[in-house]
């Protein structure tokens, strides 16, 4: 037998287990929920494309009635706003916010984080009508108060594999998975992951030198509200670094142009 035949035989015999392993291996090598906080969003930001680097993605926070939310802004928490609350967030940043006045738990607070990892592309001028819905249910808050760690991956459902059930505009259908399964992988299977919400496990220590790290650097966000005159206003909360002039955003952010009827979604 020539060496060529031996080589062919060895390659053939070696390819069999490789093919078998290839059939059973679908694990994504990079994106798992076990990555450090912010890694997935930064990877998406580094990947670029689709205008993710220069866009404030409107996010609508849904919470039980009476709950107040406060995003970290410029070294501290902004004044709390009653839910539902809409604001523009950057892709790739991790936002710490404070949830207060939780129903049936007076005086208790939860400090979730939200990592925005992608954006959507609504028709021009209708961005506020189609924000990404981030839902904090009463059960989520109670689990966080009990000391559990809740991870919610918000994903855009693929219409070709959608669930045939009626869904309201102000709620998201939640799929519970058991520990040990990567929620990011499940969300990627069912659609396009948009944001990662993490609740529980961490509260501010009260030490001033750790508070800045607790706020995760206070990334910039766009405050969207309604003036008493009825006209919307936009206020950009930049990071302390950007405020000091040491660093500016790489790209100018796209101005948000709203239609007249789009302001009805604002409170």
């Amino acid at each position, binding site marked *: *037998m020539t060496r060529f*035949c*031996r080589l062919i*035989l060895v390659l053939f*015999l070696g390819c069999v287990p490789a093919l078998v392993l290839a059939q059973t*291996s*679908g694990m*994504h090598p990079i994106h798992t929920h076990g990555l450090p906080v912010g890694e997935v969003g930064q990877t*998406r930001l580094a*990947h670029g*494309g*689709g205008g993710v680097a220069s866009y404030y993605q409107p996010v609508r926070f849904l919470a039980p009635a009476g709950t107040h939310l406060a995003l970290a802004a410029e070294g501290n928490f902004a004044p709390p706003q009653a839910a539902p609350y809409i604001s523009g967030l950057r892709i790739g940043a991790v936002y710490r916010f404070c949830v207060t006045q939780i129903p049936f738990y007076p005086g208790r607070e939860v400090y979730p984080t939200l990592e925005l*990892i*992608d954006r*959507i*592309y*609504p*028709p*021009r001028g*209708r961005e506020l009508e*189609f924000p*990404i*819905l981030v839902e904090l249910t009463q059960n*989520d808050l109670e689990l966080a108060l009990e*000391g*559990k*760690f*809740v991870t*919610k991956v*918000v*994903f*855009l459902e*693929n*219409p*070709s594999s*959608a*669930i*045939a059930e*009626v*869904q*309201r*505009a102000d709620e*998201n259908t*939640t*799929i*519970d*998975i058991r*520990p040990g*399964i*990567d*929620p*990011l*992988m*499940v969300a*990627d*299977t069912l*659609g*396009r*992951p*948009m944001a990662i919400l993490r609740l529980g496990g961490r509260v501010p220590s009260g030490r001033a030198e750790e508070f800045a790290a607790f706020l995760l650097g206070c990334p910039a966000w766009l405050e969207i509200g309604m003036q008493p005159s009825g006209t919307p206003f936009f206020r950009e909360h930049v990071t302390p670094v950007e405020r000091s002039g040491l660093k500016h955003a790489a790209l100018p952010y796209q101005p948000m142009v709203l239609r007249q009827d789009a302001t009805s979604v604002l409170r």
Partner: protein
Amino acid sequence: MKISKMSKHMISHQINTSNQVWRASAIFASTLLLCLTACTSIEWNKNILEPPAYTPPPQVVKPPKQTASFIPNWFNKKTVTEEGFVSSTQSAQNAPSQVAPPQIAPAQNYSQYPQQYQYHQNPQQDYSYYYGAPQVAYSPQNYQQTAPQQMMYQQVAPQNPNPTSNQPAITPNPAGCVWDTLPVSPPPPPPLAARFSSENAPQLLEESRERFFRLVAYDTNSAAENSQNVQAIPADPSLAARGAQVVSMYQNRQQYPPQYPIAPPRHANDEYLVSGGDGNMPSRVQSDWSITNLQTEETIAHFDTVSGAVVVVPSNPTTIYAPRFQNVRQVQGVVQESQRTWVAANDAQTTLAARASREQIGKTAQETHSLYARNQNSLDGMGGSAAATANRGNISTAGDRNVESVMSYRQAMHLKSFSDAEEIYLASGGMKAAAWEGGESLRVSINNQEAIACADAKATTSLFALKEETKGNSLLRLIKVASADAAQPGDLVEFTVRFDNVGNRPIGNVTIVDNLTTRLEFLPGTAQSSLATGFLVEPNNAGSFTLRWEITEPLLPQQYGVVQFTCRVR
């Protein structure tokens, strides 16, 4: 020296031995492979080597068309002819009560109308509003005087003051869209050939250009229908300036149906609901009228031609921006983690083997194995799902601006504002100067011997003779629009499908099928039609419904109809 020879011999012996081992192993492996191949081939060819006992094949009896599950029993396939349906073995009296069968009165005395479009007339239709008093002979002068509305029948469809038609009127929909009572179908305009004369030739040419008629000039004396040698129209600057072109009869046969720039952006097509089109796998109508390859989101129509062929026509895809979000939640407790750590510590204290086996059982990779396998086709964790539906849009587009153009395009479906200008807009948006009616009937022939009209009285060399097209075309144009280009879950969206017979021959058994996508929930009782129609609803495999309209009467040339229904966005 001897030692060296001995060692060389030993080395060569070892080499030979290793060669023999390799050779033996190769022979063994080859034999094993041959045996496996032989066994497999024997297994595959078992039926050939050992043929089973002969059993007579079951006698396949095709179910009659009337008893197919998807076809209502009252509807019977009929043969369409130039005059309409002629062979109907089953009456329409068994039709569902929701659609009244048309009561066609016997033909009345309409012989005073010009002969060339008598067959267009509906005996129960009062055409005096459109044509004025019945006229004995047609002339451009009285046409201009008595029928000005008819010239712009597509721009403003007039309300019929005496609605004696059997067509049911569409009432305003519950969704609150801007829809008025649907007028009856206007009568088709008389053929341009009948209106052609030396006086109105420029006007007709202008009209034909606006209506995307393909003006074809060919030499009737030549056997080949080729206009390469005809220079009459280009030689006439007045006609050429009005858009008259010399093209071959079979030249520029455009793609059908027209494609509109309303497909969503490819990088965000998972944010849109698409309804309409025929996808990549063309739907086909079987002999029992069942439809194969009809996937969700698709809307098609099929009809029978005079020659007996069944033609399937897709609609344009309609997109609605309706993203829907869901959550994947995972709750991890500190108690569970401590228990897992505690058990592992105990195992570590007892025996390493037990610890190894316990860790093997508790591996995360084992638990999520099947889910990982389902995710093999994802790209980068974020964009894989978008790429999976990249083929839902039939055409590529530039961005959101094209999506917004759906709203202006939607005006075309409002019958009171349907205009030729919008046709131009639609066609220019999709493909420039697309000839929807590329096969329509207007033909210009040059025949000096049999000239019946002169386009330009001064230019005696330019003689035109119009004649009807001899080759029949059966074409159906299917346009589908939605009442909203963006919707939230729970919103009501009204879909309207307009079908036009843009050919020059009647078509029959017109059936419109809409296979709704998962996130569109059909609201019962909202289906309406401007023509006498049988309507059928069946659940599909996507958790939604398949809607089917069956037009009971043939669709005459240039006749159209509208069906509409309302869905709730899930």
